[in-house]
């Protein structure tokens, strides 16, 4: 019977006293005239009573003591766990953390990608130039220097003028035309100014190894670039016989990546190198005027705790913080 099916569906809630008054009246009216449903109710009642009669067990007498022990090993009342600090409230912190992650990932990709891509391109370019240079080895160094002056685009010279390095500025050194104006496979007047540049992953932004024959050429180029990014070059006196020499460049941190990129692109003569005419193995100093604070060949004797002062960049240093001290190791090739 349809009516019985409906009522039997309500019997459970009826037993629990969870029906509304009209529903309860409906059930009781039906029960008064239906023996089947009355039997059903009795069976259900027996079952409910049985479940309710399930024995109540006593917890262990040490229950409270164990709870206290667990609390003592876990923390204070309402003490926040690391999950609370990191994730709660979820509605606020999760979106913020996801947004921060996206921004950081973007910044990392943006700062890392151009350097690696352009570095690869410039190194390939340097190799091509080296091959060309070897073919033209018979040309005199003086001739090369003149060619260098002629090839140097004016925009590059203009770009070499010292510029103020504001903290908000985009760290770009020089003009993009400086590189693109030089034909990629044109004979370079300078042999192996910079053969290759390595950026060790272990200490990024601090040590750069340059493979070049002439230390002074590298120093001059570094000096040019440093001037343009408001930095300065420091050379520690070293024997000229050693195959590896070191120079230091101090500059605002934001320019470090651009500096390294530009240094790695150095395949032709810079203005300073051309003027100095140094392309031979002896590699004499350049004629470019040293920017303020640049010390070449004079190491101070005081042992100040300040690392910069050790290299002669003591109290009179005018570089705006934060700065980075870049160590450039110039390694002469074996041949």
């Amino acid at each position, binding site marked *: 019977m349809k009516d019985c099916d409906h009522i039997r569906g309500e019997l459970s809630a009826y037993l629990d006293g969870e029906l509304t008054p009209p529903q309860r009246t409906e059930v009781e009216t039906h029960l008064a005239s239906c023996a089947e449903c009355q039997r059903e109710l009795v069976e259900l009642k027996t079952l*409910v009573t049985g479940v*309710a009669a*399930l024995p109540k067990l006593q917890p262990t007498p040490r229950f409270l003591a164990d709870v206290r022990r667990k609390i003592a090993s876990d923390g204070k009342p309402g003490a926040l766990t690391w999950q609370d600090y990191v994730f709660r409230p979820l509605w606020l912190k999760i979106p913020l953390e996801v947004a921060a992650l996206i921004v950081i990932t973007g910044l990392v990709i943006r700062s890392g990608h151009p350097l690696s891509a352009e570095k690869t391109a410039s190194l390939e370019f340097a190799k091509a130039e080296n091959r060309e240079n070897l073919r033209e080895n018979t040309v005199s160094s003086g001739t090369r220097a003149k060619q260098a002056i002629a090839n140097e685009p004016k925009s590059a010279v203009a770009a070499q003028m010292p510029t103020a390095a504001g903290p908000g500025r985009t760290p770009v050194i020089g003009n993009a035309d400086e590189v693109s104006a030089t034909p990629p496979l044109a004979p370079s007047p300078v042999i192996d100014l910079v053969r290759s540049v390595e950026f060790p992953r272990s200490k990024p932004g601090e040590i750069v190894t340059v493979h070049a024959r002439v230390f002074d050429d590298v120093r001059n180029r570094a000096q040019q670039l440093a001037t343009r990014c408001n930095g300065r070059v420091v050379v520690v006196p070293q024997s000229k016989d050693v195959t590896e020499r070191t120079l230091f460049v101090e500059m605002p941190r934001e320019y470090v990546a651009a500096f390294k990129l530009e240094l790695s692109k150095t395949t032709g003569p810079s203005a300073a190198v051309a003027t100095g005419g140094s392309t031979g193995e002896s590699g004499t100093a350049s004629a470019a005027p040293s920017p303020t604070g640049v010390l070449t060949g004079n190491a101070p004797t005081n042992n100040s705790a300040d690392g910069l002062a050790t290299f002669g960049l003591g109290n009179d240093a005018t570089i705006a913080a934060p700065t980075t001290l870049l160590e450039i190791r110039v390694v002469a090739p074996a041949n």
Partner: protein
Amino acid sequence: MERVSKPDAKVEASDRELLERCRAGDETAFDDLVLRHQQRAFNVAFQLLRDHEDATEVAQDAFVRIYRSIGNFRGECEFTTWLHQIVVNLARNKHRWWKRRGRQAGMSLDSTVETADGEVSMQIAGNTDAPDVQAVKDEFVELLSRRMHELPRKFREVLVLRNVNNLSYEEIAEALDCSVGTVKSRIARAREVLRKSLKDEL
């Protein structure tokens, strides 16, 4: 049928009072809360897990969680509803944990329990019947308890909360985070399944 008695307003106010004192740093207030509700928490956990050790751990962990979260409890529901909510959730986790490891939980009510004081019989509260009456009852209760444990988890939860701990449909809905309508139909269905399984047995 008469509505199963619920905790009166005085006790509930007392729970809130203890919570307030606990929030203010009164450690004895928390101890009082544990002592008052430890049996309730333990029995729900035991009926859901049928394992003395697991039930003890779950009930204790529920109080530890309450202790840590007292600052966040805004009093939207009764303390007992909150306690049941935590116990049921922890029991579900424990049940899943054992299920993943392939253990079939289950224990007879007259089995013994291994404690730090040695092996002891499980203590049953309020056992005052004559021995022969008690034996029949025990048999039926043992069977009922076994069949209860064979029910699907959702059915078992509503029956335990309703008939073992006397929660109203509304309180069960809060504890299980579902609607009152769901609780009503789930209880009816659970009783139907349980009745059929007992009929087959008897």
